[in-house]
């Protein structure tokens, strides 16, 4: 990203840079960004909305016997399965999924979410901070690598605060994209069928460019400067939208929402116009009839993650993709009076893809799903260690993305007292 544009955008978004920092010395005179095809890592964040139950997934507990008066789960402890070093609950799609992907999977258990509120938990999971105002990691990655791309940050839901650094994109009816991609044509498929002559279009653009310069110079209110920058940045990259048409499948999947979302996201990535995406699948807030409502959701979630990799393989980009799966918190130990599980501030995350070493489990929890501590050096469980918090994971992910230092790190600092180096690989 052009550093001066970054400063301008960030500063005008109401995000103050520390005077004297490297970013603050760049001035605010921006230069137009030049969109170019993105070929770096594609970041896919999968949100299980509502608060999932890790004990039914990758942090299995079970019950000792059928007489257990307060069972954690309805399956028996003896039925817990494993694939490589990863234990998992004997439920739903778990066996298929973990057997297929355990060598790629990093499981982080016993994450101390420090909240059991939906909004705050979601924010903590995907930004790494509990306080308000921090962008999602997806937004930071996209803003760092190419905010000018037309679908730089594609969001299908979940926590997607951008802090004004990058525009989110939502996907609607993809059949309308042709007309959107070619706004200068009557018929999107006919390059000669234009509203204006080529020369007139050039003159219109020249007039726009001139006026834009004047408008940017004359805008003095921060809110207006931000709005202009956002619109002009989006406009600069809009032409690249045409590339998306080349990679979208003729028909999107109807069987799994996550697969459908992944198809659009991966097409955008292949077109070089997208960097990060939020995929979202909800229904996990099962305060009643937990097992019957929750386990099928987990199954669909894992089928969806499986579908993401299938799509990535089919599009020959699997080697350049990272998938992070998480939720805002976990579910309470045991069942409530309605066979449901309420909110619990301990959770897990699953990571796989480029830069992630699989077949590993970091962290853990007690039989009643209390978080255990890990040694920051060895990452093994240790009573004298520290609790894993989202900031530890995000700090390592930021390092992977190359944004743990520099302007964004200054603006949105993460500073775990004892980082968990080597967490990802």
């Amino acid at each position: 990203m052009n550093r001066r544009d970054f400063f301008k955008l960030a500063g005008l978004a109401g995000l103050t840079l520390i005077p004297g920092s490297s970013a603050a010395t760049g001035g605010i005179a921006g230069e137009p960004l030049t969109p170019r095809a993105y070929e770096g890592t594609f970041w896919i964040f999968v949100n299980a909305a509502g608060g999932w139950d890790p004990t039914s997934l990758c942090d299995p507990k079970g019950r000792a016997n059928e007489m257990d008066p307060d069972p954690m789960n309805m399956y028996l402890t003896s039925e817990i399965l494993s694939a490589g070093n990863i234990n998992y609950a004997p439920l739903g799609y778990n066996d298929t999924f973990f057997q297929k992907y355990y060598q790629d999977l990093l499981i982080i258990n016993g994450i101390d979410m420090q909240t059991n509120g939906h909004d705050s938990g979601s924010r903590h999971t995907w930004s790494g901070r509990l306080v308000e105002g921090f962008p999602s990691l997806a937004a930071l990655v996209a803003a760092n690598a190419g905010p000018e791309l037309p679908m730089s940050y594609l969001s299908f839901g979940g926590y997607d605060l951008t802090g004004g650094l990058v525009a989110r994109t939502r996907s609607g009816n993809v059949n309308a994209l042709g007309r959107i991609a070619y706004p200068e044509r009557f018929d999107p498929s006919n390059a000669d069928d234009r509203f204006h002559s080529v020369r007139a279009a050039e003159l219109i653009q020249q007039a726009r460019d001139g006026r834009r310069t004047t408008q940017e110079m004359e805008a003095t209110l921060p809110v207006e400067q931000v709005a202009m920058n956002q619109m002009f940045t989006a406009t600069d990259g809009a032409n690249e939208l045409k590339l998306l048409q080349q990679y979208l499948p003729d028909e999107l999947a109807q069987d799994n929402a996550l697969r459908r979302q992944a198809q659009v996201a991966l097409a955008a990535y292949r077109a070089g116009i997208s960097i990060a995406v939020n995929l979202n699948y909800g229904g996990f807030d099962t305060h009643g009839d937990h097992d019957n409502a929750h386990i099928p959701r987990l199954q669909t979630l894992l089928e969806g993650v499986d579908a993401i990799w299938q799509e990535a393989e089919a599009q020959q980009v699997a080697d350049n993709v990272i998938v992070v799966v998480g939720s805002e918190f976990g579910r309470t130990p045991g069942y409530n009076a309605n066979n449901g599980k309420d909110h619990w501030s301990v959770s897990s995350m699953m990571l796989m893809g480029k830069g992630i070493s699989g077949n590993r489990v970091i962290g853990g929890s007690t039989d009643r799903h209390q978080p255990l501590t890990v040694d920051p050096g060895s990452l093994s469980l240790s009573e004298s260690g520290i609790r894993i918090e989202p900031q530890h994971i995000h700090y390592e992910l930021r390092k992977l993305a190359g944004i743990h230092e520099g302007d964004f790190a200054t603006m949105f600092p993460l500073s775990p007292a004892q980082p968990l180096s080597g967490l990802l690989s």
Partner: protein
Amino acid sequence: MRTLGALTLVFGGFALGGCQAEEPEQCVSNEDFFKEQIWAPVMSKKCITCHSPTGVAKSSQFVLQSADWTGYLEANLATVERLAKLEYEGEPWLLVKPTNTVDHGGGVQIERGSAEYDAFVELVDRIKNPVECAEDGTEIETYFADVSTLSDVETLRKASLSLVGRLPTPEEELAVANGGLEALDLVLDEMMTEDAFYERLIELYNDHFLTDRYLPSVDAIDLLDGEDYPNSYWFEAIEDEAERNLARARSNEAVAREALELVAHVVRNDRPFTEILTADYTMVNPYSAQVYGINANFQDPSDENEWVEAKLSGIPHSGLLTSHIWLNRFPTTATNRNRHRARMVFKFFLATDVLKLAERPIDPSSIEDFNPTRESDACTVCHANIDPVAGALQNWDDQGRYRPPEMGWYQEMFAPGFGDAELPAGEKLDATSWLAGQIIGDPRFAASQVDIVYQGLTGAPPLREPSDPSAPDYLGKLVAFDAQNAELQRIADLFVESEFDLKTVIKEIVKSPYYRAKSFDPGWSEDEKESVEAQQRLDELAPVGTARWLTPEQLERKVEAVTGYPWRESVNGQSYLLDFNEYRIFYGGIDSDTIVERMTVPNGIMTNVSQRMANEVACWNTARDFTKPAAARNLFPYIDPGFEPEDDNGFEIPAVTEAIRVNIQYLHWRLLGEQLDIDDPEIDRSYALFLEVWRDGKRGIELGEYSVTLPGECQATRDFWSDQALADAERITSDTNYTIRAWMAVMTYMLSDYRFLHE
């Protein structure tokens, strides 16, 4: 209510440059001094590290609350005031501890003689001699002294587009130009009698209530209990299919809209807005009356716009709180026990996000209680608030039906009530009405509605108090929050004084600097621009003014307001901006179901949609406008297609170019809201575009590169509204001198401009 006293000090002295000595000293209250000189720079960064409820000094007499506690500043000032009165050998404890004059576990935190120390000394003195600042109403003017606002007429234009989706009439403009803001109030009062205003009001409140989720199919009627309303599908008995389909759609829409129509009804009839919660009726039109099996009197039984008050049998109405559709939109379950609904009550009607209360770090290992929601501090922080309200909603089941619990309410929950007030035993069957009375008596009710309207009109929610004192822009954000909060509180007070007249809120927001701010001129030198104070002032001004990317609905209305026609290919065609299968979602709209948050930052797709709009609207409306007599035109009243700026020899025709420039000036005002002098550089730029496109077109026609015929889509051959063919004399299909296409270029240029797409 907060004071703006210290706010003026923070930037006022700076903005005054070298003239500070001549200015009267600004009053700074103790609260503001503490916030800006003690808390933000020192205590929030140094002291609280140990002196917090969980820090190593948690057992000391000096424990500070962090910024995520509601009311933390007041609590911390109280703590400091108490500590300042304690002395050690004649010196305040507040000074001897951080300087390590007496043993301090944290060692020296403040050096004697430092600026921080001096601030602490002053604080101690202030605590002994408290400073309270008088409020004379000029604080807000001082705060915005370096900000220019829209003119009265510009404000009228902006408000008119926003509230009623049209441009002001010349008479309205004249009245405001002559009568100023007082006249603006009167014009707005008139506008707020128009149907378009109530459509806008419904749209504004649906952004929060989201009950339009049930507009499709019979989604709303499906929510009704078949035994309670056996005639709910009455329309299925209609034999004629078209008539049946129409009745079905109108019936469903009427049920889906009952809550929003109540909002509109209360405002339309100038009732106290509290009635949205206390109304002992619901709203029905002729179609929903049949759904509910009600005999109501309608002037026109086929008019879906005729709404009347009605009582449903067996239901103790209490406005929105007892609306089927509202209760279903915010459902509950056997285990949720109305807590979700209670949370929404706090959010919509008490300006309180209950979930924020749970955002303080909690420790799962500390939750070992049998009934944690009642007994664990980590849980009671929310549940002590929402459980009583949930209990007051006890008579409404998971389907939104009135079904008082036969076995009573849950004993293990906090008792039904509101705040400290418990639900009287005799009120159980009508507990919701009792709750409504409690809510409207709470000052937060007025604040909540001001917040909703503010967000609706500006596009941005009111600021939240910043919670991260370590952030470099913390103080700027804090000042910005305080200033905006003071303005919104002022409006809330007027709202209460007006006996909850929502129109008062709308008018006050329209007149506020947050809505009208246009530019900022601090008069900074180059050096000053780089200063910390300058950055802080920019932080403070972050929420000032509007630069709102128009919603799909707003852009749809604006296109029609300025051109006279919607962005539709034909009168019966789909609306590109409103149709969910077209651009509505792409353009940042909501479906009130799974997509409930508007996108406010444009992306590449959104800007391309706006480009297509600009091209199509320019194409369809340029020739069309010329088919009408000049006086009836919306876009080109000062010129005709035959007006060419140069003669055959390339010499300018002054009278024609003057007319063209006048029309361009007119378009800048009509489309972009810019009042420009005729020799303004922007007029020159637009004129140059027209001229160069025209010259290229003339040349191209002469060389045979361009056709004299307009592109088919841009020809004017039919009347849009009647869809009838135009008479031959009215039709415009050719453009022999290329002026229509030159004007199309100007139209595209303006319709895709920042100022057209934002308000």
